[in-house]
């Protein structure tokens, strides 16, 4: 049986490294919006070549936040978000 997706095998090579990060976080006493989020935001910005990254809980709320922030609507009430600095219908 070839599974369609096998995240166990995908994660396995990094499991020790991830567990070490997890242990450090457990020990740190700081769990939300701390150093790890800051450094990942910077790393991801560098990787994407953008100025800013804002970490959110999931992809769905990212869209929500962008729309809230921009509040761009056309005359029909259709909302837009920025993609590659261009407004794009969602």
């Amino acid at each position: 049986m070839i599974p369609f997706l096998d995240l166990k095998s995908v994660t396995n090579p990094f499991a020790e490294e991830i567990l070490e990060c997890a242990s450090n976080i457990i020990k740190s006493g700081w769990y939300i919006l701390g150093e790890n989020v800051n450094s990942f935001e910077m790393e991801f910005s560098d990787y994407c070549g953008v100025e800013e990254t804002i970490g959110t809980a999931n992809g769905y709320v990212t869209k929500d936040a962008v729309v809230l922030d921009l509040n761009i609507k056309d005359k029909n009430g259709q909302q837009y978000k920025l993609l590659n600095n261009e407004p794009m219908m969602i």
Partner: protein
Amino acid sequence: MIKFLNLQRINAQYSEELKQVAAEVIESGWYLQGERVAQFEDELSNYIGSNHAICVGNGFDALRLILKAYIALGIMKEGDEIIVPANTYIATILAITDNGLKPVLVEPNINTYNLDISLIEEKITNKTKAIMIVHLYGKVCWAVELEDIAKKYNLKLIEDSAQAHGAELSGIKTGNFGDASGFSFYPSKNLGCLGDGGAVTTNDSELAETIRALRNYGSHVKYENKYKGVNSRLDELQAAILSVKLKYLDKENRRRIEIANYYYDNIKNGKIILPTKINSDPLSHVYHLFVIRTINRNHLKEYLMDNGIGSEIHYPKPPHKQSAYKEWSNNSYPISEEIHETVLSIPAGLHLSDGDVEKIVKIINLYYR
């Protein structure tokens, strides 16, 4: 320095167990909507005594999705009114307005810091659909009168239990008083995970099924979407962590009550008003926060800091004075405003040694301004 909160110290006692479950989840290859969430949901509903527990992304979403589910079920509609205490943390009110519902703010009782039940009835209109009670600071907000009002006007009773895990009155636990209840597992809570997390508890099967769909894009069957839902799911790692920590909740609450009782017995200072002590049902306050009042609150905070004691203000500004709700800026809720001007939370958590607690009392008793 005695910190107001020290999660590093609190979680250190469980670190081996927490690392063990973290390793298991990392190695499992399954990270969302799996057996650990299902297991924690069972454990939580057993603990609360409710038929259902539905884990979500955080405590705000727990409240938001209860209301969203009532809208999806046709029990509420946009513009309907929800009664809510004026002095709650803003998240309770944001959960209401996020659904296009209208919060109707009601003053608290200054002795309990909880909703003044005697003021509810005059605020009820033909649009009122629910009363959102908040067990603020860890103190149960419940009375037979609440049930009577809800019955008389056909209102839902929704609990905000974000600060009161494990509190109980007459053998009933928070999360099992009303029609539905929202819990937060923010790390500093009496039951906290190591990130964001939340849950809804209810005995209403239809509501539970609706929230299960709503938290997962409104999907009840894979790739079929019955409702316009959201994404708000607790992950397996946090669920496994919560299963570890739930085992210790009662023990931790007993320690919080012990610290509070020491404060009640030993803080003696005419400048300080202690929270009202409950003698009848000792578990009806689990002291997520021990909140005192004094006229010159900021001065007391500075004095404590100068003497090596951290403290926090819950909360410095009421929701109706926040820029987010500028439409209410001219409204007046004098009791709520007085609370916000005078309250100060002193350390009461699991990180305190007996010596710390004694020192805090000694320093507070020497405060004279």
